[in-house]
């Protein structure tokens, strides 16, 4: 490093004004490239009341079509955010626990490996994305997801006429025959990034803590969103707490959605 710097200094002395620019470049090099975001979510199960407001907000935000009674009965309803109801113990000592389950945005997602057409991929910020226009609907990703967090459009989406004006213009509806999934409200993340750039500052934790629709809506404030790469973010602090765990960790998918719970889980 020192040799490079001295050479740069020497060159700078030679070419004058141009040398200043080189020095600046060297300074940027020393401080390293700008930090990448790694979006993650922490859901505090001890706060969660199981009210399903997150799931409802998600439907409204992301234009998720209404499946109807028959299709819901046959498991064809789409939920980007859903409540997994589990029960512990047997009848007299029965306890129920709700897990709000968005996509886990695994760091090593099985779904991306099996997608034949690259319709699903990982963004630079660690979001598992989906391109409905490219998807061929083979459902291999849905089959491979151990959390069942991907949904196939079993029919053409439809909304009652009166509801259509309430559709979110930021999110395109998906046609029949493709897969869709939770995207961590990436349209909101993009908007927040654009806003902070316009204001000439970097994105901070306070901008994104309640950014996704589910986190914004949660009345118990159980859902926290943020940058896991930011050492000062709340989501990072909570994810490192001893109460934190992730779903099906033994599979090695490294989910970026953490759950907090005091009591030990007993099946």
């Amino acid at each position, binding site marked *: 490093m020192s040799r490079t710097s001295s050479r740069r200094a020497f060159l700078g002395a030679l070419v004058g004004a141009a040398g200043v620019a080189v020095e600046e470049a060297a300074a940027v090099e020393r401080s390293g490239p700008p930090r990448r975001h790694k979006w993650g979510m922490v859901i505090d199960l001890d706060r969660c009341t199981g009210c399903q407001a997150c799931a409802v907000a998600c439907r409204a935000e992301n234009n998720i079509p209404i499946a109807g009674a028959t299709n819901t009965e046959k498991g064809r309803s789409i939920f980007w955010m859903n409540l997994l109801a589990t029960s512990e113990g047997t009848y007299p000592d029965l306890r129920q626990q709700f897990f709000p389950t968005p996509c886990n945005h695994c760091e090593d997602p099985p779904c991306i490996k099996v997608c034949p057409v690259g319709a699903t991929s990982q963004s630079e910020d660690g979001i598992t994305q989906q391109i409905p226009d490219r998807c061929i609907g083979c459902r291999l990703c849905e089959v491979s997801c151990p959390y069942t967090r991907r949904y196939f459009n*079993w029919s053409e989406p439809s909304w009652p006429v009166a509801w259509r004006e309430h559709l979110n213009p930021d999110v395109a509806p998906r046609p029949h025959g493709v897969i869709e999934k939770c995207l961590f409200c990436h349209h909101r993340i993009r908007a927040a990034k654009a806003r902070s750039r316009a204001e000439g500052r970097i994105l901070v934790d306070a901008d994104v803590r309640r950014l996704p629709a589910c986190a914004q809506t949660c009345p118990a404030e159980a859902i926290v969103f943020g940058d896991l790469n930011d050492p000062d973010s709340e989501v990072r602090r909570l994810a490192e707490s001893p109460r934190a765990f992730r779903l099906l960790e033994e599979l090695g998918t490294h989910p970026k959605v953490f759950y907090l719970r005091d009591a030990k889980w007993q099946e």
Partner: protein
Amino acid sequence: MAGVAAAIPRAASDDVMMLRHLPLSGKGFWLSLVALAAGASALLYGFLLQVLHGHAVTGQGSHGAIWGIVVANIVNFIGISHVGIAISAVVRILRLERYRQLARLAEFVTLAAITTAVLNIGMDVGRPERFIFNVVWYGRYHAPFVWSCTVITTYVVGSSVYLYLAMRRDLWVCSAKAPVRRGFFRVMSLGYTDTPASRARHNRVVWWLAVIILPIMVSVHSVYGYIFGLQAGRPGWYNPFQAPYFVLGAIVSGFSAVIIVLAVLRKAFHWEAIFHPRMFKGLGIFLGFVTLLYMYFLFSEWLTGSYASPEGERVVFRDLLAGRFSLITWSAVIAGMLFPFALLFVQGVNPRMCSIPLTVLAALLINVGLWTTRALIVVPSFYHPLLPWDVAPYTPAFSEWCIVVGSFFLFALLLLVMVKMLPVLELPEDHEGAGDGWAPAMPFWKQASVGGSAMAGMVLIGVGVANSTRPEFFHPPAIWLSGILLLLSVPFQICVLPERARRRVLRQAHGVLSSSQDVVVGVQSRLAFARQARVGRYLTSASSRAIKAPVLKSPVLGNRPYDKLRAS
């Protein structure tokens, strides 16, 4: 070659007997054509239901069976498609003269089954209109689906080339001896000339193709095993055993399908003299052996899954063996494997029990049993996701049954069309020991074409594989698939490109020219050529254009007769 003499009857009336399946006449043919077409339309109906009303018309669901019986059907037909070429290749490589006449029929079974299977895949995916283009254009090297696309393409093209080259001489014979459509056979034989040299060349090329096709055939079904076996998040599927298990299943169901088809055609066209009952006994014994092996694999899988495996796996196998699927499982095993195995075993050990109807019955039962086993591989896993989601029970819906039943009809329909259009039996050769000779060396331009295609094919495959990590720019599957197609065109070129015709044309043209110096070279030579060639003139017409091309001063082309003409 004594075996050939014994197996193939020689009398002139035998040609009539061996080609009597060709005319499109008879009440039986039209009735079966109408019935099969009507049945195959069910496939279209099921597909249309899905297109018009969405996949919601099926019994599947995201929290339910994500894949259903159509996927089981795909696996079944891919499996059946294997064995045709396997039988044919083994017969050719090991020179099993007794089964020689079975080879072509088995190849037809392959092509009909793989067509049906690919149609089924197209009907199962959500967006059939993008399915093939996107997989080829945007394909990712790490996806088992892309592997399957690659190996299936290789397999379809390879086996078509193989089928054609092995059949080319018979097409040529048909153009002279067939009761009908001689013009069609003449076109189809693409200018074949029946010389010992061309026979030897065809035999060698087809032998090598057989050697190459066998591993491809193993790979196709292995890849289907991998589509299931690599899913760590799917209890009941995640299993290193899956690939050999699928290949074995393919052999079992393919052999049973071939036995059934063979018995039907033997009856329909009265080919008792050609397909001796001994052949059925041999096929039956082999089928019994692979069925036994399959049951052993099944037992081994079930024991592993239910002994002390993780809870997630164990619930699936408990459901399969003693739960809601147990009735289907055990009836498939007992009626579809154990009982037919017993039937085949008894026939194998006791020659007096040996009968074709019994063998066919066993094959039918095994086919149904194997189809059910495939459904039992696909579906039960969805009842037990790793997280405790509520799961909607799966009942195959009308549209799915339409597709499944229609597929079997379509398979039979395609077979019927191929059997009626093309010669099924290998026609007897006039020369004793034909095909044992050596083919002469190919002319330089043909060597260049063949070698160039082979090189270009390998380069393309290399470029595709080397750039597989940059799919958005290079579209690697498209590159390596075109390489594979080029490579597979090599055997076709070796056999089909003309080589003798050109030299003869030149000699003729030279003779004409030396008699009268003032004729126009191109026209005269083309006329001479037209008189000379009898078949396939459209293909060889390229060589007359080559004559008109400017002469190159090269040591190879230097002895062309026009050099003298131009010099004078």
